[in-house]
């Protein structure tokens, strides 16, 4: 059984989290993400969960990390300024391998910028925003249905790889209303438990240690300092640091193919759009209005880890075009993986590229 609703993207995000078994939300309201917190505040107590309105975003992500270590599926939702405040503890979540979900309904920045307008300006921040080397996963929905589906999926990825996982949406998708189908339940994959005889941060071949949350009966020491497989600080040995941090990056990067989620249209095309989030819908509109096999589209539902192999799906590509709601962020990743010219089509100010704008771009670059 499922139900069909006409719902806002932010509400669908909250429904996706609830369906995936999220039972803790720690947050601080911020436009344009607030409806997620509002929905969770209404719904979580009735679902046996806990909603805490925290004093700020530093505390929000800290509470989420704590809740995750009790074994709960935990999340927060924010936007630019709040996301910036979360950065230090996002690094802590990466270093302590805490499975959790951070939703960023992106708005125009820098600073308080445009609270009520859309942007994709935090795409590099979600990849590199905390200090030091680490790797994370970022999902990029382009519809209300995907706000539900990808939020639920984010929890599975967070658990599978024990990383903070980002739902990188924006004001357009967060606030639009569309039809959405909500299943009664979604299948969930919880973290692999820590095996008997394994140390708490001892990983197998996939680089991901089993998880023993507090209260599971195992003694686990959790620290943001460089640590050994027992979880004890070991902050001066170059080898200890090298081994740990290489593993934190490799457990995600070496699973790029397994994590990847993208759509390909017209793989024989010569001119290829690469998109994520709402600009993908403008490209889809242009391609429906002007059917043309020489134009292709790679639409990423997961931007990080970046699936560079997906670019090779277009063997005849002569030019890649990348519309983004920023001044050119993920385009850098495309540029460093292909030999062909890659053209950034930036747009800032809060509005989506129009079909007419992309048609003009095609006239220049085809």
């Amino acid at each position: 059984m499922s139900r069909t609703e006409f719902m806002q993207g932010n509400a669908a995000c909250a429904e996706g989290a609830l369906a995936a078994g999220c039972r803790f939300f720690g947050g601080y309201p911020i436009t344009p993400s607030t409806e997620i917190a509002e929905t969770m505040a209404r719904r979580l107590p009735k679902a046996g969960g806990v909603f805490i309105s925290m004093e700020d975003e530093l505390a929000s992500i800290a509470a989420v990390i704590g809740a995750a270590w009790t074994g709960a599926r935990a999340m927060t939702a924010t936007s630019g300024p709040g996301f910036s405040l979360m950065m230090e503890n996002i690094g802590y979540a990466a270093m302590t391998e805490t499975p959790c979900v951070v939703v960023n309904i992106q708005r125009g920045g820098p600073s308080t910028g445009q609270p009520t307008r859309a942007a994709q300006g935090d795409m590099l921040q979600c990849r590199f925003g905390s200090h030091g080397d680490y790797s994370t996963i970022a999902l990029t929905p382009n519809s209300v249905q995907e706000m539900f589906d990808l939020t639920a999926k984010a929890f599975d990825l967070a658990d599978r790889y024990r990383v903070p996982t980002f739902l990188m949406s924006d004001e357009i998708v967060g606030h639009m209303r569309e039809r959405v189908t909500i299943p009664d339940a979604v299948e969930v994959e919880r973290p692999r438990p820590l095996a008997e005889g394994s140390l708490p941060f001892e990983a197998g071949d996939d680089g991901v240690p089993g998880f023993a949350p507090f209260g599971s009966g195992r003694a686990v020491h959790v620290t943001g300092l460089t640590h050994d497989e027992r979880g004890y600080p070991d902050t001066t040995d170059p080898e200890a640091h090298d081994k740990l941090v290489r593993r934190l990056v490799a457990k995600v990067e070496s699973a790029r193919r397994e994590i990847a989620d993208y759509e390909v249209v017209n793989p024989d095309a010569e001119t290829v759009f690469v998109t994520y989030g709402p600009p993908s819908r403008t490209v889809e509109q242009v391609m429906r209005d002007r059917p043309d096999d020489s134009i292709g589209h790679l639409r990423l539902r997961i931007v990080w880890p970046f699936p560079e192999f997906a670019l090779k799906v277009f063997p005849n590509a002569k030019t890649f075009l990348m519309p983004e709601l920023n001044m050119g962020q993920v385009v850098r990743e495309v540029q460093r993986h292909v030999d062909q010219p890659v053209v950034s089509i930036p747009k800032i100010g809060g509005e989506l590229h129009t079909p007419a704008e992309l048609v003009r771009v095609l006239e220049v670059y085809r």
Partner: protein
Amino acid sequence: MRHEIRFSGYGGQGIILSAVILGRAAALYDDKYAVQTQVYGPEARGGASMGQVVIDDTPILYPEVTEPDIYVIMSQQGFEKYGIRAGEDAVMLIDADLVRSRPTCRYYEIPATSEAKGTLGREIVANIVMMGALVTATGVVSREAIERAVLDSVPKGTEELNLKALKRGFELGERA
């Protein structure tokens, strides 16, 4: 066929709710596709408010409204900000008591607010009167669909009043 409908009035009239109800009618009860968006700014109650809906028989890709073919305008400021540039082929429903200007496109004067205040006794249902007129004047969704969407969306205990307002709107739209 793709329709782009824009509602504008002042904050507090239920402009955004009108857009949501119309989108809901199309997407849930008329077996069509709909995307509803709004100007989401710091406008206070009384300022110009705007909500829009795209309705189509096929899945909606580009979600934003570029050139509305249907306007529902319920305040002078709303007209000046969001209605004045209406294209020649558009059609506009105007609350005749609240909007002084008239567009260059085809338009219908709907006395929604005076009907709501007078005949129905509650000014607050003016947007529902307007919605009824919109449906019969343009056929953008069916009467059945809009009735169900209105009933889904209004507070308990006000169903009868809202249905009356909607029916009054149907009549005004038919005559337009």
